[in-house]
């Protein structure tokens, strides 16, 4: 049998619950009934209840089947996942809502993640499956979410706060635009294995991969030389060439970035910005990272105005004040020195003490 190719994913129309098929494109409004419970009302008057459940994203097939069990019991055999990897149970009959919630509570599955809560942490592979991580992904996420758990199922926060994690500078996910980003970073230059470089790597591509021009050819060796003063350990050369690993047990760790945003609401999309250049890798629970994230969430929650996101709050009070209020020491790495650095300098005499 010739292999069938390019047939594409299943048609989503075959996956939609009847209430959605019926009211597709004709939703009128929604209400946030309580944390984790949304109610969408259609022009037709139909009501759809969505119960959002937190997920570790890394699921066993048995766990997926358990999700199916629940969906079959309460949702006519339909279920969806969100763009942040939560599970959504779609209930077309109001009477099923409370029993479903009771069932979920029994299973210990967290309900929440809607509105002004802390929803799931978008994250990546880490030590589970990737070759370039500077830290783990699932482990830190579990540790942080355990600590922020109360914020998942409640509405205690002034606004949206989206946390993301990426385990290396490749930043799989939208880490670079998150209210709080946890980012794995390396701090050591690549360890050159000339044998591998010679045999497996295309030297010009390796050289072109370096953002700071730290790599130059070493024609004698048919290999490369790294200018250690210029290397900032991004690992980009390793992506291109297995002979240049950057991972290191002491060098690797975590950095914290804040103030990014994706939605166009009010202030528009923005990048996350560095506030803590390095925290050590301390599995299994990364207490330094957990504490840093929690502190930032709570400092923001305490000082921001309603609907004001992390970056909006900080831009209002000024970054110099943020460092003070958050009690985060200012580190030299925070001052930009890459391509657009001058845009980040304080080009005014107006600032706060």
């Amino acid at each position, binding site marked *: 049998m010739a292999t069938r190719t390019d047939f594409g994913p299943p048609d989503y129309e075959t996956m939609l619950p009847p209430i959605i098929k019926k009211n597709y494109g004709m939703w009128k409004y929604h209400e946030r009934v309580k944390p984790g419970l949304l109610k969408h009302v259609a022009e037709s008057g139909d009501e759809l209840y969505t119960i959002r459940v937190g997920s570790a994203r890394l699921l066993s097939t*048995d766990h*997926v089947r358990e999700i199916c069990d629940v969906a079959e019991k309460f949702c006519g055999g*339909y279920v969806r996942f969100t763009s942040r990897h939560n599970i959504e149970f779609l209930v077309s009959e109001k009477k099923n809502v409370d029993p479903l919630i009771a069932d979920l509570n029994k299973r210990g599955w967290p309900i929440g993640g809607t509105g002004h809560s802390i929803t799931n942490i978008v994250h990546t592979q880490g030590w589970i499956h990737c070759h370039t991580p500077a830290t*783990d992904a699932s482990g830190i996420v579990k540790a942080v979410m355990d600590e922020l758990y109360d914020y998942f199922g409640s509405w205690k926060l002034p606004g949206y706060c989206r946390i993301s994690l990426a385990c290396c500078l490749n930043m799989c996910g939208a880490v670079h635009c998150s209210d709080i980003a946890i980012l794995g970073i390396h701090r050591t230059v690549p360890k050159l294995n000339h044998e591998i470089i010679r045999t497996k790597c295309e030297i010009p591509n390796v050289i072109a991969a370096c953002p700071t021009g730290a790599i130059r050819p070493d024609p004698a060796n048919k290999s490369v030389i790294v200018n250690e003063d210029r290397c900032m350990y991004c690992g980009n050369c390793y992506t291109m060439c297995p002979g240049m690993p950057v991972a290191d047990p002491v060098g690797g760790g975590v950095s914290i970035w804040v103030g990014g945003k994706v939605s166009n*609401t009010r202030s528009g999309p923005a990048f996350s910005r560095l506030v803590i250049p390095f925290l050590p890798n301390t599995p299994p629970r990364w207490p330094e990272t957990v504490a840093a994230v929690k502190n930032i969430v709570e400092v923001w929650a305490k000082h921001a105005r309603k609907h004001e996101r992390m970056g909006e709050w900080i831009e209002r009070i000024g970054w110099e004040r943020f460092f003070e209020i958050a009690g985060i020491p200012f580190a030299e790495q925070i001052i930009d020195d890459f391509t657009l650095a001058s845009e980040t300098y304080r080009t005014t005499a107006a600032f706060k003490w």
Partner: protein
Amino acid sequence: MANSETPLLDDLEKGPWPSFVKDMKQAAVKKESARALLGQLEQSFVDNIGHWKHGGIVGVKGYGAGVIGRYSDIPDKFPGVEHFHTMRVNMPAGWFYTTKALRAVCDVWDKHGSGLTNFHGATGDIILLGTSTDHLQPCFDDLAEIGFDLGGSGSAMRTPSACVGPARCEWACFDSLNLLRTVTRTFQGQMHRPMFPYKIKIKISACPNDCVASIARADISVIGTWRGNIQIDQTEVLACAKTMNIQTEVVDLCPTKCMSWDGKALTIDDKECNRCMHCINLMPKALRQAKERGATILVGSKAPIVHGALLSSVVIPFMKMDPPYDEFIEFVNKTFEYWDENGKMRERLGELINRLGMGKFLKAVGLKPLPQMIKRPRANPYYFWREGI
């Protein structure tokens, strides 16, 4: 595997948030490779370092994409993950499933892989986490059988994604799921056979809330929008006034300050509105977008590698978004072509535009320069007279 063999990971079984360790252990009961993964991960927790080798190229017949090759660097210790390749399976639009479809995927994966998955990957695929080389093709064949194709990887178009849109959201300015299906089907070849300078991503959000973060991580970002006046239901406005402070929460936070509220009626100077969604978000019953709807097309966002992260920027302020979406597909084709011809190896679209100039891109894809494309004009006097003088 006895608990005592993974004391560090065991700690992550505690606590209220769902534990991936529990899932790994669940899979480990059935699967040697899941058991090995658990062991190797514990080793990483001890060593503070990953234990995977630099990926290699593996795949299925006819495709260059869809599989991420992976090999343990301590295979002697953990032979179960000596090869442990991931399959990226293209999800249905909107991440909607029947339990039947989900169970079928699980069955295939129990047959061929580790029994571990990601629902979903950061790009949106179903990630089937780890199998050996010899299982790749049979696994794909079985997936095909149940109607699931692979997603993108490598220097290919990546699996596009879209927000839930009209399926469950009153703010969808066009049918994001249908557009996603069209795009996915149209570009199957570009997704499965890497032949571009680098990866290229398309993400579709049906309104400016941008629930798939398309402006941050898609070379082509489609964001729903509208023209004309926001529809106001003043009765519902008055109802809102009972539970919220319309002045401080809505009017004062409007970025263009184009709203006013006198305690009785809400007025919007729509000409000055920039359609940020803030007021609509806060008063979903009272405010609805105008009736003329479509999308803004933006290009160029990406993560920091190589020249720093970029956000997408506006190139088409407004495009009608009705099937068969010819105008959009043509734009994508022209964009692919321009990038394919001019992009250097590992240069994303945004970087290419920065290198050669937005003007050249606009010309190549046949767009006129408009003030909506920029936040502000240039401050440097280094500009060209390409047409001569």
